[in-house]
Structures are given as structure tokens and as C-alpha cells.
């Protein structure tokens, strides 16, 4: 990520100077960090948007009597970390959500968790807080105990003001938090006329488990365990991001072999999830053939994960400094053989999907996300790539082992459910190629670099391309090798926002297929 003197940052720097926005530039682990005054928070966003930067994440932290507020932005080729400080007595700064609508839920989260007020924010309702803590209690402040002061029974959150639609024939469909399938909880409020969706509003944070607070005071190993449970289907990707952030903070480089094994685990996770989802998307329009075939393939895949790596979902295979599992020559042969079998199976199954006109009829034009909306929202992962956004952390801001591999990024332009299915199919094939590259090029050597206690207050900010897309993780250590702040922004943050747009003008019964094509993680979003 040595992007410090890149052109886009120079251009931005000139723009800031022209606007007289003083900024203090430092470099943290090859990443540029600019510190500005809180008063310039909004003006910076305006300039960033003029320079077509994507909003990546926003998070805050309490350091004694100061709040440090952070935002991360990205160009096509690198990241920029923006920071400002507020005094605890006057915790307010201008909202960036007026410029970047995607920042809104993040600001509402920071408001609920820290009591930092974003002036003129477009949406002043609470977000992460329901009724488990009081309005003027802020769980991520240092004086808030982990146990909190909960009531015996936390009441349902009944006073949330949903957007209303009125008029002849307009009706409302409330769905959730508990849904009809075997899925995570969240609330969806539809306004519909006939079967057509006029508006969808999401109310999430039902599975808020206090992950950020729980991370405080953990050892590096225990943090990886927790990160592996942010979202069960992204366990490898989230543990990897947490490991990378901590390794940066500690100044550790992991052995090449460990990086390759992490890559193998991550691509296996990608394939497993895509296989499951492709089947499930088809099943949501009643095409059981695909569901049966793909869930069979997924099961075989998971069984091999269990026999070679010791866990069906590959949980807890990463540790700070490296990996816990090794691959023998026999394992590599088995995995290479498995790739051949999978490819053959797909070569038989996918034409049956492709040539099926009834499936085509249901997936084409359904759930359209225009390239311009995808760009405005800064959507990531396959949702972005199905709407023409050509970005992938593995290729564009590469890291080991991907910087030694030939990465092909699948992009589709149509932006509908069919495009998302096709991007996922292509990603499965691309991952098969990556896996076979990694298995043949697997370097010899150690599995772990011995952990070194990081310096007091050292920080790390890492991105990983998980199967859903870019994950951003921030870590700051206190003294004694303990975590003082941990924040992970799951790609679902964007997935949920995109979903609200995707379903517009679709029929209510197509919501499941639209949702599955995006498949955002509630747990990853709610933390």
C-alpha cells in the first residue's frame, strides 16, 4: 500500500491547500493518514467527492478525555485515512453523510455508541441502539462497563419512526425480525402498491452482540477467535483482516507459506459460499435442480475442508503471525484432484442453468442496481462488480499471497440478479484457478512468525477481499499486548444499503431472490 506520493493524493492535497484546509500528513504502515480540524470534516468530504473518492468506513475511539474520529476513503488504487480529534466535553463535528449518504448509518452507530454528535446529519434517528441501553448511555465509552445495566427483559423497540407512504392503494408489509426461513434476524418495512415495492426500509442491529466492546482487553489470539465469529460465513476473511491489522501494528511479516495457506483458506471460503448461494438464488425462483446440485457440491467441498483442514467452515485456522494448519504433499494432491472434479461438475451443471429459459425469465432484469447507484454508494464485492464497478482489493491494493498470483476480476454490466449470479459463477472459476496456482507454487518454510509484543498504542488498518468484498479492520493496542480498540467494517454495510435500492419497483415476492443475490450478513453489519 505504498501510495503515499501517488497522483490522486497529490491532487487532493493541492485541493485542500487551495481551500485552506490545514492537514497534518503522517504515514502509518505505508498508509497515508491525514489529520484535520473537526470543523473541516464536511469540507474535506466535499473535496473528496469531487475527486471521486469512495467512502470506505467511519469509526471512533475514546482516548482518555479525547474522541478520535476516523474515516477511510479510497481511490481505485489506494486508501486514505482521515482523522480528527474532539474533546469529550464538546463531542461534535459536521456530518459527512450529506455528501456521502453511505456514511449515514456509520455516523448513527458512532452517535449511539459514543455520544458523538454529527451536526446536520440527514437522519437523526438511532441505529444500533434499540432498548438494551438508555439514550444517554454510550457502550463504547471507557466508563461504560461491559455488563451494562440491562433490564431483566429488554423490551421490543416500538418507537422507531419508519418512513411512511400514504395514498390510495398504498399498504405496508412489516417483515421480521424473525423471518420465515433459516436466516438471520432483521426488520424490513415495505411500502407497496399491488405487488410493486415503492419503498423498503431496513431496521437492523437485532443481532448486535457488542463485538467492539468485547474486543477491548483481549489478547491477539483471542481477538482472532472473536473476529472469526463476526460473520460465520466469512470466518477466514475476518480473522485474516484482524491478523493483518495486528501484524502491521506489531511490525511482523508472516512466512510466505503461511500467506499462501491463508489465501487457500480464503478462496475455499469464497467457493463454498458462492456454491451455496447460486443454488439458493435459483431455489428462490423455484428452480430446485440448481439447489440440489449446488448444495451437494457445497457439502462435498465442506467435507474436504473438514478432512484436510479440520473444520467444515474453516474456523480458527488463522493465528496472529501465521496459520495453525499445514498442507502435506498428499493434501495438495487431494485438493488438486478436488478442483478437477469440481470443474467437471460445474461444466455439466452450468450449461443447464444457462440454457434454461424459465430461469432466465425470472433472473434477468430482476433486482436492478445501476452502475451509477453502485458508484454513488461505493458498493463493494460481487454486488459492485455485477454493476460494472471494476474493483478488487486482491488485485488493486494487493497483499500476499495475491501479489504473487495472476488475479482475474469478473465484471458484469447489467446489474440485475442474473449478473450477480454470473459474477459469482465466474468468481468460482477464478478461485479454482487461484487455488491451483497456490497449490503448485506453495513455498516451503515456517507456518508462524513468532509474535512480538507491539509497541504501546501501535495501530494497524488492514483490508482483505473476503468473499462478500472488501473488509476493513482497525486495531489499536494498549500496553501489555492487549487490544484497546477493534473495529471491523463488513461489506454488508454496503450490501444492505444497495438492497434498499435494488428492490424498488420489483414485486414483493421477488424480495427473497433479490436479497439472496446480495446476501448481506446481519451479524457482520450489526457487530
Amino acid at each position, binding site marked *: 500500500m505504498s501510495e503515499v506520493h501517488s497522483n490522486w493524493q497529490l491532487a487532493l492535497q493541492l485541493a485542500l491547500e487551495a481551500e485552506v484546509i490545514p492537514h497534518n500528513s503522517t504515514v502509518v504502515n505505508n498508509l497515508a493518514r491525514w489529520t484535520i480540524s473537526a470543523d473541516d470534516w464536511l469540507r474535506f468530504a466535499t473535496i473528496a467527492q469531487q475527486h471521486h473518492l469512495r467512502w470506505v468506513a467511519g469509526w471512533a475511539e475514546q482516548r482518555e478525555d479525547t474522541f478520535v474520529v476516523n474515516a477511510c476513503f479510497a481511490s481505485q488504487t489506494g486508501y486514505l485515512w482521515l482523522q480528527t480529534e474532539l474533546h469529550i466535553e464538546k463531542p461534535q463535528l459536521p456530518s459527512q453523510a450529506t455528501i456521502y449518504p453511505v456514511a449515514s448509518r456509520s455516523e448513527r452507530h458512532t452517535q449511539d455508541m459514543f455520544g458523538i454528535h454529527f451536526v446536520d446529519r440527514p437522519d437523526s434517528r438511532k441505529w444500533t441502539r434499540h432498548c438494551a441501553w438508555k439514550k444517554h448511555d454510550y457502550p463504547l465509552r471507557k466508563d461504560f462497563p461491559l455488563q451494562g445495566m440491562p433490564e431483566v427483559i429488554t423490551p421490543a423497540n416500538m418507537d422507531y419512526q419508519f418512513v411512511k407512504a400514504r395514498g390510495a392503494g398504498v399498504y405496508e408489509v412489516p417483515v421480521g425480525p424473525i423471518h420465515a426461513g433459516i436466516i438471520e*434476524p432483521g426488520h424490513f418495512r415495505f411500502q407497496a402498491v399491488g405487488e410493486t415495492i415503492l419503498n423498503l426500509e431496513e431496521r437492523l442491529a437485532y443481532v448486535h452482540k457488542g463485538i467492539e466492546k468485547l474486543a477491548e482487553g483481549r489478547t491477539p489470539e483471542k481477538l482472532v477467535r472473536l473476529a472469526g465469529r463476526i*460473520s460465520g460465513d466469512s470466518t477466514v476473511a475476518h480473522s485474516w483482516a484482524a491478523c493483518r491489522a495486528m501484524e502491521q501494528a506489531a511490525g511482523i511479516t508472516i512466512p510466505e507459506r503461511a500467506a499462501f495457506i491463508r489465501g487457500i483458506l480464503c478462496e475455499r471460503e469464497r467457493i463454498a459460499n458462492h456454491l451455496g448461494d447460486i443454488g439458493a438464488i435459483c431455489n428462490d425462483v423455484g428452480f430446485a435442480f440448481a439447489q*440440489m*446440485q449446488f448444495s*451437494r457440491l*457445497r457439502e462435498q467441498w465442506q467435507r474436504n475442508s473438514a478432512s484436510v483442514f479440520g473444520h467444515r467452515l474453516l474456523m480458527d485456522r488463522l493465528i496472529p503471525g501465521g496459520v495453525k494448519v499445514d498442507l502435506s504433499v498428499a493434501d495438495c494432491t487431494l485438493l488438486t484432484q478436488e478442483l478437477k472434479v469440481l470443474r467437471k461438475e460445474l461444466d*455439466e451443471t452450468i450449461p443447464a442453468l444457462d440454457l434454461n429459459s424459465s430461469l432466465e425469465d425470472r433472473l434477468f432484469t430482476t433486482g436492478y442496481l445501476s452502475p451509477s447507484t453502485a458508484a454513488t454508494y461505493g458498493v463493494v464485492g460481487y454486488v459492485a462488480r455485477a454493476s460494472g464497478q471494476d474493483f478488487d482489493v486482491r488485485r488493486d491494493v494487493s497483499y500476499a499471497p495475491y501479489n504473487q498470483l495472476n488475479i482475474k476480476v469478473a465484471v458484469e454490466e447489467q446489474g440485475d440478479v442474473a449478473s450477480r449470479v454470473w459474477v459469482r459463477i465466474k468468481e468460482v472459476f477464478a478461485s479454482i484457478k487461484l487455488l491451483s496456482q497456490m497449490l503448485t507454487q506453495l513455498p516451503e518454510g515456517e507456518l508462524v512468525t513468532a509474535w512480538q509484543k507491539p509497541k504501546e498504542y501501535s495501530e494497524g488498518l488492514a483490508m482483505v477481499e473476503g468473499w462478500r468484498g472488501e473488509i476493513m479492520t482497525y486495531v489499536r493496542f494498549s500496553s501489555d499486548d492487549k487490544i484497546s480498540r477493534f473495529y471491523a467494517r463488513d461489506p454488508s454495510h454496503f450490501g444492505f444499503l444497495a438492497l434498499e435500492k435494488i428492490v424498488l419497483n420489483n414485486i414483493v415476492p421477488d424480495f427473497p431472490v433479490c436479497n439472496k443475490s446480495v446476501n448481506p450478513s446481519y451479524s457482520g453489519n450489526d457487530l
Partner: protein
Amino acid sequence: MLRLFAKTLKTGIVTEKIKRPDASELDALGIEVKRQVDKYFSGSIAIRAVDAGSCNGCELEIHALNNPIYDVERYGIHFVASPRHADVLLVTGPVARHMQTALLRTYEATPNPKWVIAVGDCAACGGEFGVSYASCGAVANVIPVDIVIPGCPPTPETLVKGLLSLMKK
């Protein structure tokens, strides 16, 4: 369409057979599950899965029960969309405080007699999340639990075993 039929025929029946001579543990379990379902539930048992705060790992494995390899429906076990249709609540996750009332209402909406299975380490004891300002911890801290299926997440085989142990109770 021909390709579809060709692939279907070529794949054949992948469901792991119940009455094979080299029956694995799962096959033996299957026979036992079926017998118990027939005896105590008149041949069928309806399950409502409730995620009360899980990381979604347990859900992935519960989903696997319905893949053609495990195919639990052949034992008379099926998943239903409403607690009002359910004999059993299959609850995952530590109970997030924001889900506490929803879980209690679901429990109340399930007709008697009813059983609750807590699935996964989080549901069993709070797991990685424990009790905090945001989490009630184990499912038993919120509603009465009949049996616990531990694991992070439990494998489909462990889930089938767990269902059996409920029926033998």
C-alpha cells in the same frame, strides 16, 4: 432442458442410504430417528429455526440438513415458517438483548407440547460472546431449554444426533 435431465440422471441419488450393510453412524442414526418420530410424533416433527443472535455459522450447518446428502425430511423432520406450526424451536446464538422479546414471543406463540433445542456453543453457554450489555448469553437464560447441541458450529451429523436425543427423552 436435456442437459438438465442428463445431469440429474448422471448424479443419481446421492442421499446417504439408510439400509446399507456398511451403514455409517449417520445411517444407523437415521433409522433410529425415523422410529422415534413415528412413535412419538405420529411420523413427523415440525421445527422452527430461530436465530437469536448467532454469527450465522450454525444456520449454515442447519441448512446442510436439507441438502440431498443428509435430506432429513425423509425421517419426517421438516422446517416450518411459523412457530404456530412447530413442535420444536431450534434456537441458535447467544440471545442478543435486542432479540430477547422476539424470542419470548416466539416461544409463547409455539403451541404446547413444545421442546426447545439450543444449538451451538453460544446457545449452550454464551460461547465467545457471553453475557454483556448486548447479550443475554445462553438460550436457557431466556426460555426453558430441553436439550443442548454443542459445537461451533455443530456438524450436520451432530445435529441429527441431537434431534434423536430429544426424541428419546
